[in-house]
């Protein structure tokens, strides 16, 4: 499929400068990896020509794993150790896991994120996801014949901070350099928008295996601006399977199914659901505990009636996003359908009825997200070419708030704010000599803290002792372009930086990630120190190259002394790169970074000034 031609013949970049970057759609049911080859985005197949990698991981006793088709085939025989739909557990505690996931796996409450008890030991959802990502990374490197420099990983737009962080951690564990977490509907809009040079207001209706997203975007002259997003991060095609599976079990009046046949019934329910897309009725083979199987006919009408409540559940977030964007259904120029579950005919009819127009389905709903991610990855890694200057402005899906007296939330950053965004809030001490203070950050729209997601508890320490109410601590909440939150704090009267200890409510600590990384290296018998050294050297080389380039363009922004200072640090770092001393190289990188901070700020200033001057010239009356 030729989706779009981004470069003219002869304009293609120097092959030596082309950096390998991939887009990865880490889905509930299937995952994909895509890249730009000869300026055309394509999904990469495995050796057997399959593009979709089933998001299923099977653990063996010796801690080795099978991922994808092989694992999928084993799920009925070895249901407990074969993990499917792990995305539903990312950044989630045991109490959040739905009944289906609880019944299928031996889930363990470890405080914070839930663990899955397998024959190979306890596994976090982050580790399971990282197994899938590693397979995709390997596939890309084998196909492209080189190391992947960076990846864009897609996440449901409605993922909260904990779910995003968990996804980023999984990528880190898989050895991927994450260029950006990209919202799935936005990725689809990139693929569509660039393909069709679309202009106007578009909606993306994305029903995947386990998550539902709805986004409204304004597309205009190369700017993708998300106006509002909403969704349900626990609603997807899985729920249709589940509903049908329960229905079949009831109809068969079978005794309680054992774990293996329950999984077999779920697999059968999915088959029947998919077959009902193109047939009026399908015979389901329901496994019976005692004797073989029993056939039950399911009509499309029955299935539609049975799952109508799920369809209606998708329309609530749709209405909410339109309200937030201040739009009516008729204001939407086109609705793009994304995700395998949007193949269901009754869902398509519901979407068409709501918007009063048939939805767009011309890019394969399974591939469109990975393709959009690949296009974005190519630009982010620095393979940008003339005419490719589009801009993406995304939003935070859920409001961020703080716990105040009486268990109430105070909103700090409202949902649908364009990211990156920061808000500062001032706090004071209530006791004489108080040197520490706790802040509880939550995400969600409800007024009571208990109805929102707890993200993290921050403990500020090192506040200078003062009388009660004397200290003024300014806490800054920064949400970056990945939609991830960071917090910093400073006492205003003394300027003392308070240190912050973060306890993520459903995330992994840095120590846990490091331990998992080390365990991974032991398993792969790679020397962690060698790898760290190599990464540090790459870092240093990149910084040197970037600095040289900046000096080539803008050395005039520095006076002689400043220039000498930068060059001195460059020479020093250049020498250190040869030293094989990771810590020393890191110190050299930090020193050069510090020496070029002011230079970078001036370059940015100059770029803005130039851009705005252009604007005023354009607008001069003739």
């Amino acid at each position: 499929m030729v989706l779009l031609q981004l470069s003219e013949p002869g304009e293609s970049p120097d092959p030596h400068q082309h950096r390998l970057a991939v887009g990865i759609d880490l889905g509930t049911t299937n995952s994909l990896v895509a890249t730009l080859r000869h300026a055309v985005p394509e999904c990469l197949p495995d050796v057997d020509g399959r593009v979709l990698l089933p998001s299923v991981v099977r653990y063996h006793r010796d801690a080795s794993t099978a991922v994808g088709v092989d694992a999928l085939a084993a799920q009925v025989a070895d249901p407990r150790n074969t993990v499917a739909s792990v995305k539903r557990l990312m950044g989630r505690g045991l109490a959040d896991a739905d009944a289906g996931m609880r019944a299928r796996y031996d889930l363990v409450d470890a405080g914070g994120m839930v663990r899955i008890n397998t024959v190979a030991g306890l596994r976090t959802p982050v580790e399971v996801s990282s197994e899938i990502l590693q397979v995709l990374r390997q596939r890309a490197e084998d196909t492209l014949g080189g190391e992947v420099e960076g990846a864009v990983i897609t996440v449901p737009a409605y993922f909260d901070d904990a779910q995003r962080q968990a996804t980023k951690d999984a990528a880190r564990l898989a050895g991927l350099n994450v260029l950006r977490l990209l919202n799935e509907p936005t990725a689809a809009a990139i693929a569509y928008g660039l393909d069709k040079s679309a202009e106007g207001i578009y909606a993306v209706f994305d029903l995947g295996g386990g998550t539902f997203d709805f986004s409204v975007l304004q597309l205009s002259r190369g700017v993708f601006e998300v106006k509002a997003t909403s969704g349900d991060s626990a609603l997807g095609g899985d729920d249709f399977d589940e509903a049908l599976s329960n229905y079949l079990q009831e109809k068969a009046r079978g005794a309680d199914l054992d774990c293996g046949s329950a999984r077999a019934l779920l697999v059968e329910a999915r088959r029947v659901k998919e077959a009902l897309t193109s047939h009026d009725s399908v015979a389901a083979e329901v496994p019976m505990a005692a004797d073989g199987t029993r056939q039950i006919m399911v009509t499309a009408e029955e299935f539609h009636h049975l799952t109508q409540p799920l369809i209606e559940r998708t329309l609530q977030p749709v209405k909410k996003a339109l309200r937030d964007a201040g739009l009516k259904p008729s204001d939407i120029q086109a609705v793009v359908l994304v995700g395998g579950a949007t193949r269901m005919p009754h869902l398509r009819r519901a979407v068409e009825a709501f918007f009063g127009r048939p939805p767009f389905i011309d890019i394969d709903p399974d591939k469109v997200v990975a393709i959009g991610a690949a296009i974005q990855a190519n630009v982010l890694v620095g393979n940008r070419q003339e005419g490719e200057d589009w801009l993406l402005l995304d939003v935070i899906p859920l409001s961020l708030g703080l716990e105040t007296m009486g268990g109430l939330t105070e909103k700090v950053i409202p949902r649908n704010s364009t990211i990156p965004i920061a808000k500062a809030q001032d706090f004071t001490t209530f006791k004489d000599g108080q040197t520490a203070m706790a802040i509880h950050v939550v995400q969600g729209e409800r007024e009571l803290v208990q109805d929102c997601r707890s993200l993290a508890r921050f403990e500020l320490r090192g506040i200078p002792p003062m009388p009660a109410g004397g200290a003024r601590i300014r806490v800054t909440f920064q949400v970056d372009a990945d939609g991830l939150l960071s917090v910093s704090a400073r006492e205003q009267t003394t300027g003392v930086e308070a240190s912050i200890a973060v306890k993520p409510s459903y995330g992994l600590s840095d120590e846990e990630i490091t331990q998992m990384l080390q365990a991974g290296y032991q398993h792969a018998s790679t020397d962690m120190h060698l790898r760290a050294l190599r990464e540090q050297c790459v870092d240093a080389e990149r910084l040197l190259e970037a600095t040289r380039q900046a000096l080539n363009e803008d050395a005039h922004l520095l006076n002689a002394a400043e220039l000498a200072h930068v060059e001195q640090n460059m020479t020093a770092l250049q020498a250190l790169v040869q030293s094989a001393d990771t810590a020393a190289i890191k110190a050299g990188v930090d020193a050069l970074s510090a020496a070029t901070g002011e230079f970078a700020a001036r370059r940015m200033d100059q770029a803005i000034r130039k851009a705005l001057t252009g604007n005023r010239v354009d607008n001069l009356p003739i």
Partner: protein
Amino acid sequence: MQEYYSLFGLPERFAVDVAKLDTAYRQVQAQVHPDKFAHRPETERRIAMQWATLANEAHRVLRNPLPRARYLLERRGVDVEAERNTSMSPAFLMQQIEWRESVDDSREDAEALQRLGKDLERDERVMLDDVRRALDEEPDLQAAAELVRRLMFMEKLRHEIDDALIQLDSH
């Protein structure tokens, strides 16, 4: 800190050409957005995030009349002190009570709620024009601040009406 109007090359006035503001905002983001620096060194990525954050905040404030009025008043040394200073005229306080009662009486009546919302919106438009005059034409900062405080109340009330309508809609 960078001043919002000069960031976008606009004159510091309450009346803002929204199309020009949007164009300038996109031009600034096209230079500073973190996506342009994803492959650049950490220092540049950090500065890009700070600038993009500033541009988003400046755009949000200037794009919306009430935050814009508050920003202009603050620049001119008037703190609207919305939370504390509730010394509004008795006539407006009476009006507030009336509005509240109307909203409470109409909780089950979508049409009445919509009508109330429309009336409020119309009044707000008239008052915003008064704000513009008090800021741009015949400067009267105290009068502008008083109007802003009233408008903030009205906006809040309108959100309550919207919430009530959503409640009705979802039944």
